[in-house]
């Protein structure tokens, strides 16, 4: 599915300094019943965000008007658990374009890259700096520069490089996805398949 191209993103960020945030928290299973990819943002972090009677929980960060922005900064091991791509959809649909963490679960990271959310892995020290900066000034901005592969904490100018494969980077910058690529090598795939023993 097509998504917006990603080059440079400058935004305030929403802090969620909890470790092991699993995809069941990002989007609980009971909201996976759609047959189309719409409206998942409404249920992002549903059970942390709302009480059982659907009133917002005042102490959850998404309900705190002080924090906003297109960047979500999560604790270590973000996105563990279920492979549901709905978790990445919910994050995208809510309006985030980038998730920052000191460590990502594999499948979640892959899913993000496939749908246009940029996962930026930083050192634990840098993650701490970001949390401190946002907590002391929620207006503190981050700049994510995909071509340069850098993340900068603008108030202090502190910067770190992040990793992304050149293939995925190219895709994100152009809004391409893997199916575009695979369709182009269909002949090669068919030939390969014809030689497999099973």
């Amino acid at each position, binding site marked *: 599915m097509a998504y917006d191209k990603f080059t440079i993103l400058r935004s305030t960020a929403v802090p969620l300094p909890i*470790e092991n945030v699993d995809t069941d928290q990002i989007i609980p299973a009971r909201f996976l019943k759609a047959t189309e990819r719409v409206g998942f943002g409404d249920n992002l972090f549903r059970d942390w965000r709302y009480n059982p009677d659907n009133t917002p929980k005042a102490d959850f960060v998404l309900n705190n008007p002080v924090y906003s922005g297109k960047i979500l900064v999560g604790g270590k091991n973000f996105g563990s658990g279920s492979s549901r791509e709905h978790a990445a959809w919910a994050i995208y649909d809510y309006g985030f374009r980038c998730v920052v963490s000191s460590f990502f679960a594999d499948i979640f990271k892959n899913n993000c890259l496939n749908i246009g959310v940029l996962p930026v892995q930083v050192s634990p020290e840098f993650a701490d700096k970001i949390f401190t900066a946002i907590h002391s000034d929620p207006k503190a901005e981050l700049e994510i520069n995909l071509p340069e592969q850098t993340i900068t904490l603008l108030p202090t100018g502190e910067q770190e490089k992040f990793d992304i494969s050149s293939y995925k980077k190219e895709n994100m910058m152009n809004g391409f996805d893997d199916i575009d690529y695979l*369709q182009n090598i269909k002949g090669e795939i068919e030939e390969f398949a014809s030689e497999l023993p099973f």
Partner: protein
Amino acid sequence: MTKTLFDKVWDKHVVRKIEGGPDVLFIDRHLIHEVTSPVAFLGLKSRGIKVLYPERTFATADHNTPTINQHLPVADPLSANQLKALESNSNEYGISHWGLGHQKNGIVHVVGPEHGITQPGATIVCGDSHTSTHGAFGAIAFGIGTSEVEMVLASQCIMQPKPKKMRINVTGKLSKGVTPKDVALYIISQLTTSGATGYFVEYAGEVFEKMSMEGRMTVCNLSIEMGARGGMIAPDETTFNYVKGREFSPKGEAWDKAMEYYKTLKSDADAVFDKELTFDGSAIEPMITYGTNPGMGIGISHEIPNAEEVEGGVATYNKSLGYMGFHEGESMLGKKIDYVFVGSCTNGRIEDFRAFASIVKGKKKADHVTAWLVPGSHIVEAQIKEEGLLDIFTEAGFTLRQPGCSACLAMNDDKIPAGKYSVSTSNRNFEGRQGPGSRTLLASPLVAAAAAVTGVVTDPRELIEDEGILSSVINKVKDLF
């Protein structure tokens, strides 16, 4: 160059390598279900692409199906809609579809092996993280997202960087009352939920060599819970005996040819792993979890650790214990429980029900406990009846439900109510996993059985009067096919 088992299977399936990018990996077998496939089919439609190899994809309905009255129309309109979408998409593209009520229906990771779809040395994917289950056969099997489901439908390939390799050896002999589930929960408790992220695991050593296929599936199933993409075990006679003769297994000459390949599927003696760990199997106890991720597990006779003793942040740890209503330093033994759930792709196979039966036989379910026994498939359900296990359950006050994922992820009506405790044989104890506010204690079928009859967390070893009886029940009729 020497190769690991993982290298051998992976390298055989690489269509092309992309410079500075992932490998294009050919997928032999693709399993789909109603929840993660509809959007993938929508994507295909909007691009106007056909399914390249429909015969390599198999569809089963499991995630949101009811586990009672399956002959009636599905009441929840959203679930019914997803089931309908799976059926119509399968029909439209010529994919085998085992819907609700079909005799081959069941949980995707239970039916794959049952019908020989799962084979040694194959690459297998599914839009479900516990696809790692199939690694028990020496296959590379892992969970994928919906975009990748679309990729596989369109091209039979996905694009993945090759993960690092880890070998986990468990040596020695397991003690009484210790099951494959305990081995897995023990390993996860040692590695934490992210300890194997970025790795593909090979399990090796005496403990796995002696394990049945069902046990190996339980272990590989839980690989994802320590962050690994998947786990695998080199195929051996146990594997070949299981695979041979099943519906989709190679037959005749094709079998002999396949065997030539299967026999090459082991790590070379001097193969190098990025990481290697060894545990002593005899030190493992029956396990139980006390927190909100599968890494928060302890031997059942141990106490809940203090925040300082565990890796990770104190705030996260306290949030987790607060959710569970537990405290540092407490014993899990004697804690009152409300529900017992036996089932899922982790422990919903016949051996699991035999193990459960070995403890509840001749006893009665505790009055205040609600127990859901949910077979992984219709075949498991039939076996439970044929082997007389159902009679044991009925006498002890238990009923049997119909196959499906059920309370493993509580997408259907099988939800544990808020605040209630459930001893579950499934794979995840995340907040709200088994229903909003539910509190899950992950454990083996033996621990679940001990809790079901006593109503509190109980060491199953106290209820195993005669080890001989237990193993004879577990080993009874190893292979009905």
